């Protein structure tokens, strides 16, 4: 452990350690919706990356659906009602 520490300190920030990566992977894992089931065990990073890709894709799809819905709604409403809608959603 001490050798790794000295090595990383010598080469500055170019040497990226495993613990940094695993730390980021665990943070990513916490963001995923299935983290509640898997937060106990250490999931292999490949699985976490796969779940991350799937989750990002599903989020993109949701945003596309929502933007379609919003475009339809915008076509049939005017600006004042949109402002009213936003203010109402913010107050809720």
């Amino acid at each position: 452990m001490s050798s790794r520490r000295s090595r990383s300190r010598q080469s500055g920030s170019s040497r990226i350690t495993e613990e940094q990566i695993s730390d980021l992977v665990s943070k990513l894992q916490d963001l995923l919706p299935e983290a509640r089931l898997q937060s106990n065990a250490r999931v292999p990073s490949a699985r976490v990356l796969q779940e991350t890709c799937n989750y990002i894709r599903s989020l993109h799809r949701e945003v596309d659906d929502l933007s379609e819905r919003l475009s339809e709604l915008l076509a049939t409403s005017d600006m004042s009602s949109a402002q009213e809608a936003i203010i109402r959603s913010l107050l809720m």
Partner: protein
Amino acid sequence: MASTSGSTTAVEEREIERKRKRSAAGGESAAASVSKWRTRREHEIYSSKLLEALRLVRAGSSPSSPSSFSVNAAAAPPRSRAVREAADRALAVAARGRTCWSRAILANRRRRLQAARRARLRNPATPPSRHAPVPAAGGASAQGDGGKTPPLARKAKVLGRLVPGCRKLPFPALLAEASDYIAALEMQVRAMTALAEALSAVSSSSSSSAAGGSSSPPA
């Protein structure tokens, strides 16, 4: 203060301090930014920006008139993409330029506009953060990923394609960008859902009371 527990916490503290000093991949800033996207304030900021963007979209497309209903129907598919792009742009602006994907969204958009105005010179490419092209791994440096096996490198490349503008980042930076991007996307989904709900509620109530939305907005 027991000796063993004291020494363990001292070691832990030293490790945490080390990580904080280094923070090459921005590990601790990732946690801060992730929680940032969950606050109400960011939600409000994003909602107001979204409203502005949507207003521009409405002004850009044909003004809604009951006579040109077929024209509106034909313009609906490109309009959803305009809405999506406006929402993404608002999200990128809300990031305040701290993250790579937000800069990439804004840079891509500006580049696409310029390319559409002039003749198409070249493809709208990745943002100007160019590292040396690596054949196999997604990392910029050979030793920068800490011994990634090939399947992990493949997934990292897929992830780099999904997050805009992060195709050639080293692995830890890619993870940090991805976590921030996911939190931002979640906020975007929440804000757009709330907006759609509120709009549908308002429009349904207004259509039931009077003729649907024919009141012309003041110029």
